[in-house]
């Protein structure tokens, strides 16, 4: 636990908040530490550690009961990877102190209810599992656990509730069975059979329209990408067929059977699932990611099959370890590698599979992408003789299956692989991938290699990439990221605007002001205009071209140079970009100048949005414009679009936050005034106090509304353009009698899916508009399907 360093230097009288080191809090820390550390590597056996700890806690119960209750409830909720260690501990305590056992169960039920109320469903599952394992420890009577599960399963009979609600209760029931199925079946087989048959009929009738949207691969070979409840159901069925024999879970309580079976059990109070409310947000459905099976590691221990309950438990536990330690990469790696059962399962394969499962998870990974890259590097450091090989094998497999991999997942694969390589001198057996050289460049494999090499170049430099790949790969190598200046050569002197460009160049080098630039630009003729409409500056594409080309060329040296240029001549930019056409044309010229350097385009677009030279809608329109059609499937385009959407979203949140904060300030002001109210306050003075704040709130309210409207408009523009583009393609294919499913089409339709998935929370607000305006029944069913899959996600 980190202690703040209190400096002993003579500081300028700033008081430090010294932590009050009173005894109780020290003891609580010690108790927490003892409890959390049990089960870690130790000289004594786990059993003797548990026994010892139970003794210590029992002795502390008279004075620290509530603290111990709190800590145990918290580990139940937050350390599910150590579930059975703690259920055993609770079992031992219950055997020694029946009342404590009862209070613990009550506290757990309270905590469960609270979790469900605040939508903490993932943690609620851990609590349910903990309770069910307490049956194995003789703390909870089996029949009362079955009764709770009966209430869970009956949620599937509720009417007019989202499917995801029923899904959660079903999941909470089924996913506890690996731990407690045997015991419950032994005590209440008829009831369990009934529950399982109800489960089966629910699983049969639930809709699964959402599944294709969440699958990493569209192909079922070599491993089907199953919906998570379907997979779990198969696993439970197999477990039942095996007569509930489960051999993977570590069960310390077995060693204490003689003690525990003497204990008195408690009955769970009847548990009514809290009703569905408008504020309820249930977990999204998932698809189980599988990339390995036992054939992938023929030398090592056998990997449990995809429908074995062992596989389920291992994956759950590894995911939980990552969730617990994601901030501490070394600890996380160490904890993953010390997962028990190391010699009975091919642990490295499980770890790699679980990490990629998270990295490729749709809609989004649970943690920031770069964490996985660094975690894999830490794992390689700890297991240098084995893990890198598994990782290489995984990379090879992912490459082989690129043809059916979801575009969003390919993006993540590209980012991961290029970043990973940059940590290992870009060493890779590229020749192994020579098969992609004979394919059409738009096909997934060559496309992947091109994008990887481009990203590798961004992390190094152009010549490095040329050096690291075989000569045959030059067709896939990235362009040298140089600027293209159309007025650069004497041979271009016939181009309109050439002389003005020269003039501008000299002026800028001589530190001209914005005004001087304006006056030079006045001389540029307007190619489209018949006459001025008398408003001063009208849209003059040539003016924009000459200015932007020249300036960007002069500032080409680095990002900083370009940013300075944008800042210095901001006024000129703003004027030229006044109209929508102006904004669009500026973006076009930026592209023309820097099409060899996508990274530069991205940072310039970002800067121009932030300095309000262009707006988000202009960027969206530019991306879908015909000028960019050639680059439409390139990764950098979508990075720019998603970055643009994120900026828009953050902007709305920021203003909203400002509004809430100002409202809070007003409320506090009222409260302060109300609390000292019996002074003869002048009514006018209180109004005066409120005035500026109220004005501010009104202004912010308007700002919020306008920002939200801009945000909605952005999404509508994007969806509209997608629909136009896709419809065009579909019609062309239909009339031409050609197959719709070209690489371009796959990429485009998955990019549309990506918009829905990556921004699903915001888009949910627009459902009515989308349904009535854009995704209507007349739309081609290919496009409509994407919308329907999206609707099904929270249905």
């Amino acid at each position, binding site marked *: *636990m*980190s202690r703040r360093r209190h*400096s002993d230097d003579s*500081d*300028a009288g*700033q008081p*430090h908040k010294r932590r009050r080191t009173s005894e109780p809090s020290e003891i609580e*820390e010690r108790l927490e*530490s003892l409890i*959390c550390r049990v089960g870690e590597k130790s000289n004594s056996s786990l059993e003797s550690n548990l026994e010892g700890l139970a003794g210590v806690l029992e002795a502390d119960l008279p004075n620290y009961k509530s603290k111990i209750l*709190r*800590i145990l*409830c*918290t580990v139940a*909720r*937050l350390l599910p990877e150590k579930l059975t260690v703690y259920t055993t501990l609770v079992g031992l305590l219950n055997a020694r102190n029946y009342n404590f056992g009862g209070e613990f169960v009550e506290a757990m039920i*309270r*905590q469960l209810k*609270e*979790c469900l109320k*605040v*939508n*903490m*469903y*993932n*943690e609620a599952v851990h609590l349910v599992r903990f309770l069910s394992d307490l049956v194995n420890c003789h703390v909870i009577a089996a029949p009362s656990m079955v009764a709770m599960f009966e209430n869970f399963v009956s949620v599937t009979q509720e009417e007019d509730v989202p499917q995801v609600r029923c899904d959660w209760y079903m999941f909470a029931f089924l996913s506890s069975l690996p731990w407690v199925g045997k015991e419950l079946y032994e005590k209440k087989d008829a009831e369990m059979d009934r529950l399982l048959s109800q489960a089966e009929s629910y699983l049969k009738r639930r809709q699964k329209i959402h599944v294709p949207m969440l699958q990493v691969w569209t192909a079922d070979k070599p491993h089907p990408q199953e919906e998570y409840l379907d997979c779990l159901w198969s696993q439970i069925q197999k477990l039942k067929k095996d007569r509930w024999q489960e051999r993977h879970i570590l069960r310390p309580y077995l060693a204490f059977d003689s003690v525990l079976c003497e204990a008195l059990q408690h009955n769970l109070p009847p548990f009514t699932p809290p009703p569905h409310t408008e504020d309820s*947000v249930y*977990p*999204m459905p998932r698809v189980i990611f599988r990339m390995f099976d036992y054939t992938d590691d023929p030398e090592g221990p056998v990997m449990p099959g995809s429908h074995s309950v062992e596989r389920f438990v291992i994956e759950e536990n590894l995911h939980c370890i990552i*969730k*617990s*330690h994601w*901030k*501490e*990469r070394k600890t996380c790696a160490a904890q993953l590698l010390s997962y028990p059962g190391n010699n009975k399962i091919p642990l490295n394969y499980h770890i790699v599979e679980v990490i990629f499962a998270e990295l490729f998870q749709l809609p989004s990974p*649970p943690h*920031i*992408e*770069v*964490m996985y*890259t*660094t975690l894999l*590097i830490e794992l390689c450091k700890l297991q240098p003789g084995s893990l890198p090989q598994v990782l290489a094998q995984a990379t090879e497999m992912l490459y082989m299956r690129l043809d059916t991999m979801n575009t969003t997942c390919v993006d993540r694969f590209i*980012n991961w692989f290029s*970043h990973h390589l*940059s*940590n290992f*001198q870009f060493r890779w057996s590229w020749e192994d991938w020579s098969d992609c050289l004979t394919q059409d460049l738009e096909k997934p494999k060559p496309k992947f290699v091109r994008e990887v090499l481009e*990203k590798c170049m*961004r*992390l*190094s*430099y152009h010549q490095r990439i040329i050096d690291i790949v075989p000569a045959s790969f030059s067709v896939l190598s990235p362009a040298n990221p140089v600027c293209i200046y159309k007025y650069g050569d004497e041979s271009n002197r016939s181009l309109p605007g050439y002389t003005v460009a020269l003039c501008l160049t000299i002026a800028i080098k001589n530190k001209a002001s914005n005004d001087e630039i304006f006056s030079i630009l006045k001389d540029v003729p307007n190619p489209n205009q018949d006459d001025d409409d008398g408003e001063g500056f009208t849209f003059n594409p040539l003016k924009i071209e000459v200015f932007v080309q020249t300036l960007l060329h002069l500032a080409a040296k*680095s*990002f*900083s140079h370009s940013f300075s240029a944008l800042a210095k001549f901001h006024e000129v930019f703003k004027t030229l970009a006044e109209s929508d056409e102006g904004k669009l044309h500026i973006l076009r010229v930026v592209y023309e100048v820097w099409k060899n350097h996508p*990274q*530069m385009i991205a*940072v310039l677009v970002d800067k121009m949005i932030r300095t309000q030279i262009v707006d988000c809608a202009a960027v969206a329109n530019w991306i879908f414009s015909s000028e960019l059609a050639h680059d439409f499937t390139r990764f950098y385009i979508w990075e720019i679009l998603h*970055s643009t959407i994120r900026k828009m979203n953050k902007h709305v949140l920021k203003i909203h936050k400002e509004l809430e904060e100002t409202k809070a300030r007003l409320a506090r002001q009222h409260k302060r005034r109300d609390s000292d109210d019996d002074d003869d306050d002048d009514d006018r003075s209180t109004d005066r106090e409120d005035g500026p704040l109220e004005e501010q709130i009104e202004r912010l309210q308007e700002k919020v509304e306008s920002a939200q409207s801009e945000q909605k408009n952005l999404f509508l523009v994007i969806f509209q353009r997608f629909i136009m583009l896709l419809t065009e393609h579909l019609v062309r294919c239909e009339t031409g009698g050609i197959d719709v499913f070209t690489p371009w089409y796959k990429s485009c339709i998955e990019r549309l899916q990506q918009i829905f998935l990556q921004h699903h929370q915001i888009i949910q607000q627009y459902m009515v508009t989308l349904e009535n305006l854009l995704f209507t029944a007349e739309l081609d069913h290919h496009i409509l399907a994407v919308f329907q899959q999206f609707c099904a996600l929270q249905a």
Partner: protein
Amino acid sequence: AGPASGGAAMSSGGTLSILRSDSYAELSQYRDQHFRGTRYDQERLLRKSCTLYVGNLSFYTTEEQIHELFGKSGDIKKVIMGLDKVKKTACGFCFVEYYARGDAENAMRYINGTRLDDRIIRTDWDAGFKEGRQYGRGRSGGQVRDEYRQDYDAGRGGYGKTVQCQ
């Protein structure tokens, strides 16, 4: 992650200190001796800073490379390259400023201690860029560490300055 995963402290349970551990994002022992203000001021700024110092860069590492790598933990507001005070060329360090502290924290957790241009780079919290801080403070114009360095480092001008002068 969506709302369904929670993870924050709950009123009835709280959280656990082992799960709060965030050693990579903590302040280091280093304090800039040229900082104008008290230790307390400096630490206050460090704790809310969105700016990182990045060290052990190659002299040849570009702003673009830094932008690409550090962009992986969030949107970058600014990169300021460290310069030799005399030559005004890159001398192996820089500042990276993010818009959000959380993004800087992720850089400390996942980019610190990994490689850029084949070199393990080091990041640390910075109290905030001020004009003049982009220059090396070594006598020869580069960073202090390159004054007295005994080893040969091809990415950082070869031998240390003192050694070179021998």
